[in-house]
């Protein structure tokens, strides 16, 4: 694996997978450095960059994997309240939330608490 790519696994649960073509598991390869403004379309190289983090991943998933109803996944530049995020089986609230810098082979899980009862 080259130094400038990061391999990661993403999993959706709690009904959230329905927004992502009903696929629970996604294996991704993303650049280690990404645009600081979280824009996910191919960007001019002079753009300011930052290490790949959860905030960028959320934008990337919305732009490249989400199939419908983006408002059920994102709100105000982050996940919608009521969606839990786990980073390697730890609550993202303990890991710096959106600012967590993703490492090679990390596993990120998104679970909706809003579906069903």
């Amino acid at each position, binding site marked *: 694996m080259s130094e400038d790519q990061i391999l990661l696994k993403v999993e959706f649960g709690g009904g959230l997978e329905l927004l992502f073509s009903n696929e629970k598991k996604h294996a991704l390869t993303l650049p280690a450095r990404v645009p600081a403004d979280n824009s996910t379309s191919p960007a001019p190289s002079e753009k300011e960059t930052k290490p790949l983090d959860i905030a960028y991943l959320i934008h990337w998933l919305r732009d490249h994997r989400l199939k419908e109803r983006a408002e059920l996944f994102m709100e105000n530049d982050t996940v919608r*309240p009521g969606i839990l995020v786990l980073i390697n089986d730890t609550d993202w609230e303990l890991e710096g939330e959106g600012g967590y810098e993703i490492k090679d082979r990390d596993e990120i899980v998104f679970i909706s608490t809003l579906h069903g009862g």
Partner: protein
Amino acid sequence: MPRLCALCSTQRPILKRPKTGQQICKDCFFYVFETEVHNTILEAKLFQPGDRVAIGASGGKDSTVLAHVMKTLNDRYDYGLELFLLSIDEGITGYRDDSLETVKQNQKEYNLPLKILSYNEFYGWTMDSIVEEVGRRNNCTFCGVFRRQALDRGAAMLGVDHIVTGHNADDVAETVLMNIMRGDIARLGRCTAICTQGEDTIKRSKPFKYTYEKEIVMYAYFKRLTYFSTECIYSPDAYRGHARSFLKMLEAARPSAIIDIIYSGEACEVGEEATKELKERKTCKRCGYIASNDLCKACTLLEGLERGMGNAGITDRGRKQLEASGPTPDGLRTIPFFQMNASTPTDATSSVTTSGQGSGARISPVVDVSAG
């Protein structure tokens, strides 16, 4: 230095508790989650040894976790309860039929007897056919009224003393908010009660009253419990949906908001004046169930459906229109007669008989007790 669990100071924390902000490890999380429910049960004196208790099971996260925790606590603390799973099949294609599969799986995992009661067998209507008749505006009113009565009757058939449901702290807080917004003062205090019991209804309680939804979902995740998480296809309750999003926004800003709202609801002393609004209880002339008019809500709704005036049962005005449009025709489909606590648990099913009223009472409740 690595962070350590706030409770045991030895393991790595995996969760930040919304209620307290504490960072705790997986083992401590399971322990405090279960123990808090246990304490809630003890403080409210919910059970007596020997009680027969039905868990209202939908296959969703809350009732799946509730079944797991009830079974765990009953074994760990020797409650001496006889537990059952009770499910209602509303007849919603592609939704309830799938979630009932989850319930059947739970039944095997926990080795609990399961009974499924369907709207179709009981009322002669499925939610699919009701929506076809009344459209998608008031369907949840029908569903809620029918479910409530079906659960009570299912419980009577099982001969249980008590139904526990998976309503969690978020659900209770949401209901408090909605009652405030409606100005429904009488319900405001009552909706926070952990246990509701009229003289003639089966006791119902919410052991998860103080349990955050976030922790229920985390518990299911870390215990690898499988649950069903698809939205009902007829779920149109936009108002409730907004109340929920609002609550989740408050929680994001200050996690204690949920428990604070519940405390506020509890603190609302309901004066005589406000409670008077709630009508006094009667017994339904047609089916024997509790009612505030001559007919219970379910019989009124059912008569509206049967007479092709689907929405007549929804409002008082609609009910009067129904009454004004002539007497109830003969041969109308009705609900079997209901007698509470009329028999011993062993012949519980015989306590539900076919109503003599209305010769067209061809629906008899069907029991699907698959003992584990």
